């Protein structure tokens, strides 16, 4: 019950914040539009099989969702910032349940935000998510799960907002970059090998493949990678909380 209470609390706080909505919905759509326009000629000359708008419509969407790990971290640290930590500390609730609630709420809000960006991109920027858009939405939800677990686990493990944000500031852009978020990753070489370790790479590949439209051969791999990494991160967070208790 505590978990659901905190999930609802988190969802309400995040989806009610105009700053968050602007940053995670309007921001990505604007950047997709700018990049889609700016790189049109380059993509046309490169004969990639998809347009710049199509490419960035996927990769910048997954980048935005992955950036949501900062939101999840904020969900944990906000109690300290709003001085409510002591009030929650004296209440008869479990810390693990409360943290799982923050994780669940962050995941739901990121998933909603990701799907809204997908829908708006599809309507206003004509981005094609293939014949089975629900599969793309499922991939976005899986990525949101990964982003939420990354933010929450780093917040729990480091305990200090600056330290957790510092690590996220290093990890998130790196995984987005080698995942092809900013530019197309070549089919061979060191970057190609490194890209295997980025869950963003698998999600991007799966979504672009669905958009082509392809058979969706990367969907299973992308979902497995995201869910396994998420489970591992949340296990670490829970173990850390139990040890603290």
């Amino acid at each position, binding site marked *: 019950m*505590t978990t659901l*209470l905190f999930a609802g*609390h988190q969802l309400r*706080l995040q989806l*009610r*914040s105009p700053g968050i909505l602007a940053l995670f919905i309007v921001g990505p759509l604007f950047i997709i539009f700018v990049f889609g326009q700016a790189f049109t000629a380059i993509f046309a000359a490169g004969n990639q099989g998809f347009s710049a708008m199509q490419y960035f419509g996927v990769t910048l969407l997954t980048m935005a969702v992955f950036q949501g790990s900062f939101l999840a971290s904020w969900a944990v640290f906000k109690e300290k910032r*709003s*001085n*409510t930590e*002591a*009030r*929650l*500390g*004296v*209440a*008869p*609730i479990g810390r693990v349940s409360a943290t799982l609630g923050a994780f669940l709420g962050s995941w739901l809000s990121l998933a909603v935000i990701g799907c809204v960006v997908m829908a708006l991109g599809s309507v206003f920027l004509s981005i094609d998510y293939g014949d089975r858009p629900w599969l793309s939405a499922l991939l976005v939800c899986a990525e949101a799960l990964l982003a939420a677990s990354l933010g929450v686990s780093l917040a729990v493990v480091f305990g200090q907002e600056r330290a957790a944000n510092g690590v996220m500031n290093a990890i998130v852009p790196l995984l987005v970059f080698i995942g092809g978020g900013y530019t197309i990753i070549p089919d061979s070489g060191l970057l190609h090998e490194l890209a295997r370790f980025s869950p963003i790479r698998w999600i991007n590949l799966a979504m672009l493949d669905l958009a082509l439209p392809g058979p969706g051969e990367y969907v299973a791999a992308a979902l497995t990678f995201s869910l396994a990494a998420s489970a591992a991160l949340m296990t670490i967070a829970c173990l850390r909380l139990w040890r603290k208790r």
Partner: protein
Amino acid sequence: MIEIRNVSKSFGPTMAVDNVSLTIRDGELFGLLGPNGAGKSTLINMITGLLAQDGGSVSFMNGAAGKAGPLDAKAVKRMIGLVPQDLAFYQNYSAIENVKFFASLYGLRGKALSEAAEAALAFAGLSDAGKKPAKAFSGGMKRRLNIACGIAHDPRVVILDEPTVGIDPQSRNHILRSVEELRRRGRTIIYTTHYMEEAENLCTEIAIMDKGKIIAQGSQERLKLLIKDSSGVTFTLKRPDPVDLGAFERIRGVTTAKLDELRLSVTSEVGATNLNELTAEVNRQGLIVTDISTDSPSLETVFLSLTGRSLRD
């Protein structure tokens, strides 16, 4: 009853709380006073379970409840309502949303939750502002909302940590009346403050803490006796009649009697309780008195006397 026995806590080389023992009886309004860094907040954090003590014990109701068997940590937590010194609520929530959220942590749901939240807001004088976002509140309203969030689940023990810091007199007055109302309802209250007159007006029992130790504890009267080595009575006379000072000095317990124009000052030993004899002597000598005053130390005098006047960091 809250029993604190030989509780200690150190942070590195600093002994924040040093072997403190206190007993807080049910229904008592217990004032915890002390200068900055005295260890009050550390002690409160240990009472509420936010901080583990290095040694000693804190027990509620002798460590046992009646019906449901021994008190577990959750049962103790349900008894406690904390009003922290810092404003502890969500600025983006409305007042009612804040109160409901914190009350729901104690298992309140549905109608019971709504009623509890409404009652807490009414208690804090915020019924009309329930739907306003907390960030739009004035300083005094925020302080009152801070209290409403801490008491909505109807705790038996309310801990108020400096609840009147930096607010307007109206809000302060409301908060002080609310604290008295909580005591009338039979709640046990632990109240920390820097305002001596608040403690003097509210608290039934007071402990003064300094450098991690309880340096004095008792009723106000008992604390005041700690710093008194004499008590004085001053009679203001209507006209400069001749006064037989020797007759006053022969009264039991009197140490000196002086006349300074129209002011007759008589000093006695502490506990002499000779006011009746003094007034009888005034009448016997036919002196006409316009005013009588006794020198009674304030709680502030006691506090400064016990903790010193040097500035604290």
